[in-house]
């Protein structure tokens, strides 16, 4: 197991590559989801205000 994480001495290059990919892919997924929810909430609020 430890051998796997050492990546034959290249751990400092292999794991940052994978970690950065995971981070960037996660951000591109997470941010628009949050934006979408926020946008819907704003629309609902505005819509309510308009009706009153």
């Amino acid at each position, binding site marked *: 197991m430890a051998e796997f994480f050492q*990546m*034959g001495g290249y751990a400092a*290059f*292999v794991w940052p*590559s994978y970690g950065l990919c995971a981070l960037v892919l996660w*951000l591109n*997924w997470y941010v628009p989801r949050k*934006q*979408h929810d926020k*946008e819907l909430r704003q629309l609902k609020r505005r819509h309510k205000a308009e009706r009153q």
Partner: protein
Amino acid sequence: MFLWFHKLGSPPHFYRIAGKWIPWLTWIFLILVAAGLYGGLILAPPDYQQGESYRIIFVHVPSAWMSMFIYVTMAFCAVVIIVWRMKLAEVVLISSAPIGASFTFLALVTGSLWGKPMWGTYWVWDARLTSELILLFLYLGVIGLHNAIEDKRVAARAVAILALVGVVNIPIIHYSVEWWHSLHQGASLTKFDKPSMPPSMYIPILIMALAFQFYYALTLFHKCRVELLQRERNSKWVKEL
């Protein structure tokens, strides 16, 4: 067929369909990534020259392919925008740009992390690396230009022209390793004769590439839904949500 296409192009319909597809695309992406990582990090043998460092390939090559694929998709949207002024193409083009920029960034960074132990340097100004960096600037240019113009429809037309002009860079990236002397290795998979690596190495690359395609589709749908809500704020279908 034309009717189906026409219907898909209508914002409320696309908004709904995208919402329905997202969970499926996400699951397929996760399964493919799990398979690709297992194949790449565990099953594939170490390279006889590069040892374990070559395992960066399983994220580097698919990212680089996606960086070009997404740009070509944007150029295709640009043609649709210029010729037919289709709204959905505008939404797809501008929503694709940050995803494409992300993959270009990843291709550059993972490449430099691979370059350091193998070439002895993080960066060289050679044709492949430089043309990929230009691709990143093209993506950033598209995003910047779009943000600089208030009217979204005018912005989309301006961005379409930029995206279309920039597409000349794509064949330059692909052939850069043949046209110029480069530190970067030549194509190992996208050539007509046999791939220059064993199946245990190239199958995980192909699985990861497929996974990234699904990832592009699902994040594109997420981003398009946000863009559609913002653009169509005052239309009837948004008020009915």
